[in-house]
């Protein structure tokens, strides 16, 4: 039997965006100079990236400030036209068919609310319901769902301008989901939120992904979110994709060091292992450093327990922030 392949939800090929900015010099002399010969500088915000996203994936875009994440998202929803390459959403080009694509698209920019500032949240929703032509019964069902996870009913009668950041973000997420889009772009949805709200937002994203097979693209600087949500991580740096894999793969590949801290019953410790390094010995406590790829934790523990009685132990996992920082850094100082 022939296997039916579903086309990718997103397909980007060599997608690029250049911004032309005038280079300005400072000072009075500079200002006069700017007036007559302002030099154009070309900034490659996105520099030939290619990727595909399948239905139901949650993909995290991460990268340092100015890497080109927001620019990429804007090109995918048709706000910006690419200066090179192409992107297709369900086989359509956002440049030509923006109105068709956005019908089935939810967008949240964490930095800027999509809600109508002067309206009560509920009125904003009602307006969006009409814009997206969602019928009343379907709308009520969706709202009930959204309320369950995001507690929308608490804030539905508050004017948007009076909402706190976290409340507004909940409102924004609900607004983006009102028309049950199959694709969701979230640009820094958890920026500036407390742990509680952050948790409920992550839960929300997971639930809609599971329930409706919603494809989610999300950018964030919070790696905890990424760890909690994303099956796949695309790291962008300086407009280029430097890594595209799962978090475990990234950790395996960079093979960072883990630490094993063991408390023994003696302070006369003489320990050595060819594939682990003893970092320090303090009284009865010994700390070892090792790499996952070279030796497993259990192997190391059983090796130690053959020589000493172990009272207690703890394993310190790699800090993913460190891992990611290492990747960003490698890019800046390429290995010769």
């Amino acid at each position, binding site marked *: 039997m022939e296997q039916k392949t579903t086309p990718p939800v997103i397909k980007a090929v060599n997608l690029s965006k250049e911004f032309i900015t005038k280079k300005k010099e400072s000072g009075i002399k500079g200002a006069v100079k700017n007036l007559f010969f302002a030099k154009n500088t070309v900034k490659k915000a996105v520099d030939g990236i290619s990727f595909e996203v399948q239905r139901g994936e949650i993909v995290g875009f991460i990268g340092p400030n100015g890497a080109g994440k927001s620019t990429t998202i804007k090109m995918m*929803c048709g*706000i910006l036209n690419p200066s090179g390459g192409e992107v297709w959403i369900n086989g359509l080009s956002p440049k030509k068919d923006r109105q068709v694509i956005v019908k089935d698209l939810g967008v949240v920019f964490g930095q800027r609310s999509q809600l109508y500032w002067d309206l009560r949240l509920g009125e904003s929703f009602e307006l969006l319901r*009409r814009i997206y032509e969602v019928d009343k019964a379907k709308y009520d069902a969706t709202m009930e769902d959204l309320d369950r996870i995001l507690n929308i009913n608490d804030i539905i009668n508050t004017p948007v301008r009076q909402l706190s950041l976290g409340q507004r973000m909940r409102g924004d997420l609900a607004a983006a989901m009102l028309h049950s889009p199959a694709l969701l772009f979230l640009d820094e949805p958890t920026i500036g939120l407390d742990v509680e709200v952050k948790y409920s937002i992550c839960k929300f994203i997971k639930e809609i992904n599971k329930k409706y097979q919603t494809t989610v693209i999300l950018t964030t600087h919070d790696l905890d979110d990424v760890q909690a949500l994303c099956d796949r991580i695309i790291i962008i740096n300086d407009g280029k994709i430097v890594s595209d894999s799962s978090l475990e793969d990234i950790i395996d590949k960079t093979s960072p060091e883990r630490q094993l801290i063991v408390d023994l019953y003696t302070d006369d410790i003489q320990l050595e292992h060819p594939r682990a390094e003893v970092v320090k010995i303090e009284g009865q406590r010994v700390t070892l450093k090792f790499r996952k790829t070279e030796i497993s934790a259990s192997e190391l523990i059983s090796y130690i327990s053959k020589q000493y009685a172990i009272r207690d132990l703890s394993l310190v996992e790699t800090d993913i922030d460190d891992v990611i920082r290492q990747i960003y850094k490698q890019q800046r100082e390429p290995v010769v």
Partner: protein
Amino acid sequence: MKTLLRYFSLAKYFLKINIQCGLEYPSYLISWLISNPLQFFFGIITVKVIITNFHALEGWSFEQIAFLYGLGIISHGLSVVFFIQTWYIDYMITDGEFDRLMVRPLNVFFQFCFKDFNFVGITDMLPGLVIFIYGCIASGFSFTVINIIKILLVIIGATALRGAIYTISGSLAFWTKRSGILTSVYLTLFTYTTQYPVSIFPRLIQDLLTFILPLAFISYFPSSEFFGIDTGYRFMGSLSVWTFGVGIAFYLLSMTVFKIGLRRYESCGS
């Protein structure tokens, strides 16, 4: 057809929520209700003083100027009701408002037009209406069906022309990122050219106001037609129809400029 109906019902809804928003600040509304009319009544009193001291102004009697003055303010008021958002395009760009409009499955220009109904602008219009009606009665304007249709054509055309000029100058912000200063320049220009007979200006400026930036069509030409005053310019057909035509033509032009500006936005961003 279906799209048209959809847009129409959305426009109605936008209107409704805008009025609702406006009503949330009643004190704001009341303060405008008082200060705006005052400004225009002072304006017409000034005209009265000038005329009683210097007699007729370029062949116009006070009653006729009241008609012209009122007519000009009516389209001003309407343009402030419908086109106020054009004054803030620069702000909308830096604020990323267009990003917001672009992720909705609706025409961007439509959303832009119906984003704001500044119905407080009616406070600009009311004194104009009072002065205009006074002018009609005092100058012996005859309310025939033809004349009423002509007045409506003039009001629509003049409002469209004002809106078009706001839209074009506002759209410059797509290139320059700034357009706020222009708005106040236009407002002053409109005041001087639509509330007094254009014939007080030198001929060269009259030419400019007729052929380049046709502000003379807003109230001067149509009023001159109603009173049979010679302006020194000859046009085929009714000047009221001309005002309507010029207004619509400029409005179509302004839509094009806006569209080109938006295309520029798509390549440069905010």
